[in-house]
């Protein structure tokens, strides 16, 4: 299999690293070589967070350069723009339609950019906007946004669905497996 690179981005605390963990595990489960890279520490305190997952027959570098991602899975709409330089022109963006204003915006120094979806569309082949929080509330748990978004990504990747379900079952503690499977289905079918 030719290598595929997925960049997952958002704001510290949104559950990005969990999403990339699951994706990496699915790729291994599917018998591929896979590498995952992220940065811990100070950046996680409400800053911009990025995790990269690459999979294929043979992967060398765990990170990607500009114009090298096949997918961006974004948990916050503005963060999509910050990372879009890494997306191939033929790449696909799956974006959580959710705004978390950075501090400079909260205090009125900067403006939260308008028309972000239009800008994303300009630099990608396709864009899917997902109302993650609304969907999460539908199943009664606002903390499942990350798994919902992962479901939406899974739909567009070529791994068998069973691989995902097996990985989710193996990853979460028993009492939250069901809610996360539900969240995954919701994202997958959205």
């Amino acid at each position, binding site marked *: 299999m030719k290598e595929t690179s997925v960049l997952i981005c958002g704001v510290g605390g949104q559950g990005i690293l969990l999403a990339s963990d699951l994706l*990496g595990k699915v790729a291994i489960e599917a018998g591929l*070589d896979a*590498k995952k*890279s992220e*940065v*811990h520490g100070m950046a996680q305190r409400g*800053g911009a967070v990025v995790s990269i997952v690459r999979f294929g027959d043979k992967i060398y570098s765990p990170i990607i350069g500009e114009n090298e991602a096949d997918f961006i899975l974004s948990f916050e709409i503005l963060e999509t723009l910050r990372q879009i330089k890494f997306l191939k022109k033929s790449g696909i963006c799956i974006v959580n339609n959710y705004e978390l204003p950075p*501090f400079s*915006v909260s205090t009125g120094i900067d403006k939260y950019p308008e*028309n972000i979806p239009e800008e994303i569309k300009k630099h990608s082949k396709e864009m899917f906007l997902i109302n993650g929080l609304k969907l999460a509330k539908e199943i009664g748990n606002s903390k499942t946004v990350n798994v919902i978004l992962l479901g939406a990504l899974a739909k567009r990747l070529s791994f068998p669905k069973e691989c995902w379900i097996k990985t989710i079952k193996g990853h979460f503690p028993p009492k939250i497996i069901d809610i996360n499977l539900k969240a995954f289905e919701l994202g997958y079918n959205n």
Partner: protein
Amino acid sequence: MKVLLSGNEAVARGAYEAGCNIASAYPGTPSTEILENLRKYKDVYVEWSTNEKVAFDVAVGASFAGARTLVAMKHVGLNVAADPFFTVSYEGVNGGFIVITADDPGMWSSQNEQDNRWYALMAKIPMLEPSDSQEAKDLIKLGFDISEEFDTPLLFRLTTRICHSSTPVTLGDNITHKIKGYVPNVSKFLCLPSNARRWHPIVENRLLKLQAYNEKLNKNIMEINDTSIGIITSGISYQYAREVFPDASFLKLSMTYPLPIKLIKEFAGKVKKIYVIEENDPFLENNIKILGIQVTGKDKIPICGELSQTVLKKSFNISTPEPTELTVKIPERPPVLCPGCPHRGVFYTINKLKLHAMGDIGCYTLGAFPPLNAMETCVCMGASISNAYGIERASTPEDKTKLVAVIGDSTFFHTGVPALINLVYNNGCTTTLILDNLITAMTGHQQHPGTGKTAREEPARKVSIEELVKGSGVNRVFIVDPYNLDELKTILKREVSIPEPSVIIARRDCVLRIKPQFAMKVNNDICTGCKLCVNLGCPALTFKDNKAYIDHILCTGCGLCQQVCVKKSISKEQKC
């Protein structure tokens, strides 16, 4: 069966498989998860020590007693532990002893970009560098063997992208290493000059033996492809280079000190032009040039910052796709203190009182950023108190009353204690604020001597910060709740003006460790949009349609905004 492990997880797994008995560390990004993951293996004794030097000395003692030991730290931690590092090189080991340094090219979470490979050269200690998690696991096992065979500590050098990248690993069985037990050996373990003079030639000879060993090490891999370009590399740089130069010939080194001279010469004989591709300093390049072999690297590749495929392509003028040009300006999103962080009120108060705060290393370094702007210096772990006291020595009597040192609980135990004792002993009067959130927060909540729990979260003796401070000779010791702005302001204002040392302990749990019960809410009919609350710099508090707005999900109900609101427009509600 392969599993995806981060470099840090793989190091822990390798240590377990190699029968490591004892591991010590002080948390520091990107090294923290090594010890955290070693906790999975019940056979290994693990501890968070008070600082890297202490962790190092504990590991040395255990090695002297014949245990296989490991000590882990971030790159700057090895500066703290440098004193024993150099001496133990002379003394050697009994049980295998690995020193892990996790360097941080790109300074993702560090104050400098020092390249710790030089430590191996300077201390005359062998060094291994893995390029992925499988190698990390395998080389740790090899490292214990090398350490014991050559009677030397071994430096194991990781970088952020190895530590925090996950790659497939095949798990193996573990061996049991029987601890030999301590047997006195003064001629080996006592570093008197008379002994050290005898040891030094042995160390020099050991390097020659290690070099001969490295010549035959099957972990150094030579791949001969297109012979017009040969690349010598190690660690994560190999992965980047392999991707950018798929057809080139490679010499990938796993043991990067002492270098395998004959092997490098052999490689040089097979290829036309050699590039050395390495992150940060020209460590390999300079040491290969000394051998009289023609190589280049840093004439093209930057010394500063992390490497990547993109950086390499640019360095070698390999074409890259047109960069994406955006028509909108993207506001920055720097890290910030969390909503409800107990440090916020302290920095807000320092700012209001117009004090000069000398800072330290931890989450609270974020207090330097706008709108709090309440930290003016930061040098290294434990420096705040001595820096503030040093400034006090060089200040006028009036300026002395505006100085405060700000240090976290874990950092205080790390190296703040001797600094405070120095201040007391030398008749200083700087006020010290200990921000006690009852955990080592920045690195992800590790236990420390003040928490009453061991690294495995089992009960431990609790060291009381207030008793320690009083025992150090400070008479004026106050404990405040950092959610109480009035109390903070009254005490801080009073203490900085008093010409004797005081310590104010601002104590409250890190907000990430509690489940919030309340959230604040703005009454739009009363809010005048004065922005006083926005100056707290809370991520839950934004400004919408000329009014303050509080995000219910993010808010933890700390109530600071309610205290600063002069119009009384903010109230508390149950979290839903």
